[in-house]
């Protein structure tokens, strides 16, 4: 059984066709990174899976609970960390998980703090804990490190990797950072075009190398332009 199965997804904003028949499968326990240029539709895809956008056509089937982490922490400012994390809990069993997930993200000491008293990295950890409290089968991460500085980014990325390995949850990570994809994902997908299509798919550790992904994104790291100019001098 798959964690997410998308068939013939169609979505348009006015005249702008974002997807016209996109297919995507995420296996149970698999971690997929979706890369693409800004505005290519990768966030829209995630929002459709999360149920925050309604597709115009096609089917999206997911199994079990979904947890979403957005680019911003989006904590409720009137609730302390513990209550923010407990927000999605629907029963005693889920409420009992709050302490555990707070420990998992390394925020056990900050349970009683208000969001305004948290650093950016801590707030995003709290958001991650909140997404984990229902024990989701599928975690949707929409540029979850996008608002963090480089060091916090590395730190939180490592934490998310550990958590995903621990919880065995499937994950779809939307990012524009190749490094995020290589550290966190089993499989990398690159979206491009309008309507967006999968232009690259590869397995991390095999064909999804840094160079291959950058190539699919239409980026070269060689600085060839600069070298050529230098040669002329």
């Amino acid at each position, binding site marked *: 059984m798959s964690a997410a199965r998308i068939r013939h997804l169609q979505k348009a904003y006015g005249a702008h066709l974002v997807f016209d028949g996109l297919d995507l499968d995420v296996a149970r326990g698999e971690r997929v990174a979706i890369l693409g240029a800004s505005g290519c539709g990768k966030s829209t895809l995630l929002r459709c899976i*999360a*149920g*925050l956008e309604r597709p115009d056509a096609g089917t999206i089937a997911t199994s079990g609970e*979904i947890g*979403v982490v*957005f680019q*911003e922490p*989006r904590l*409720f*400012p*009137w*609730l302390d960390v513990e209550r923010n994390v407990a*927000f*999605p809990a629907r029963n005693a069993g889920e409420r009992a998980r709050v302490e555990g997930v707070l420990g998992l993200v390394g925020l056990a000491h900050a349970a009683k703090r*208000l*969001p*305004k008293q948290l650093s950016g990295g801590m707030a995003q950890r709290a958001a991650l804990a909140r997404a984990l409290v*229902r024990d989701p089968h599928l975690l949707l991460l929409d540029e979850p490190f996008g608002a963090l500085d480089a060091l916090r980014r590395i730190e939180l990325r490592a934490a998310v990797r550990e958590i995903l390995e621990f919880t065995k949850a499937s994950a779809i990570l939307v990012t524009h950072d190749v490094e995020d994809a290589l550290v966190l994902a089993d499989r990398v997908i690159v979206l491009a075009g309008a309507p967006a299509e999968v232009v690259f798919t590869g397995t991390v550790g095999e064909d999804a190398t840094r160079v291959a992904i950058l190539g699919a994104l239409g980026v070269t790291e060689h600085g060839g332009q600069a070298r050529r100019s230098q040669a002329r001098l």
Partner: protein
Amino acid sequence: MVRFAVPAGLVALWWIATSLGWVKSYQFASPRDVVVELQQLALTGMLWHDVSVSVARVAAGFGIALLLAIVLGALVGGSRGVERALDPTLQGIRAVPSLAWVPLILMGLGIGETAKITLVAIGAFFPIYVALVAGIRGVDRKLVEVGASFGLSRTALIVRVLIPATLPQLLVGARIGLTQAWLFLVAAELLAATSGIGFLLTDGEQTTRTDEILVAILLFAVCGKLSESGMRWLEKRLVGWTDTVPA
């Protein structure tokens, strides 16, 4: 200590000016006269009576305004359709300088309690209503989306996200509304009253008792300050989580 220096200096100046006869007592009573008058009013029970009458009028008018503003504000803030139907009318009424209602209300409702409470309610209503509608409109869509991503029902979204998110604005509106309520109480009691703090003002004027007028002004200052402090305390208790202290 610095904050007390200016008022203390003013009282000293007041005392010197009246005791040296720079101003006559029928123009401006001395501090001593004011204290004596305050004492007398307190001893006869009139002080407590007038204060409690005024406080009751403010409380009733403010309570009605708060209730109406919450109901109408929630309807207008929650639905564009209701906004189109109701808001232009309410904004039109709001555009009238509120004291212009005074004669009409006195004619229509007489000079009894109903007229005074209505006037206070009109004064208090608009700041609360306007703040609440702005608060509802200003709720962070992204927080609502978090609720939606967890599959919250519409009712749960309102109770768990929209109401707490709107509360700071509502409380700011209520604080301004309460200040307005006192302002309108003065207007109502100046025009037609046989009791209340405002009555002390008119009574003092008619009997050329500046000490009585000054006592009334002092009482208004104390009541206004106390209700403002009370609202600020409530804000601190209920919405201390806001990142900025509301002005």
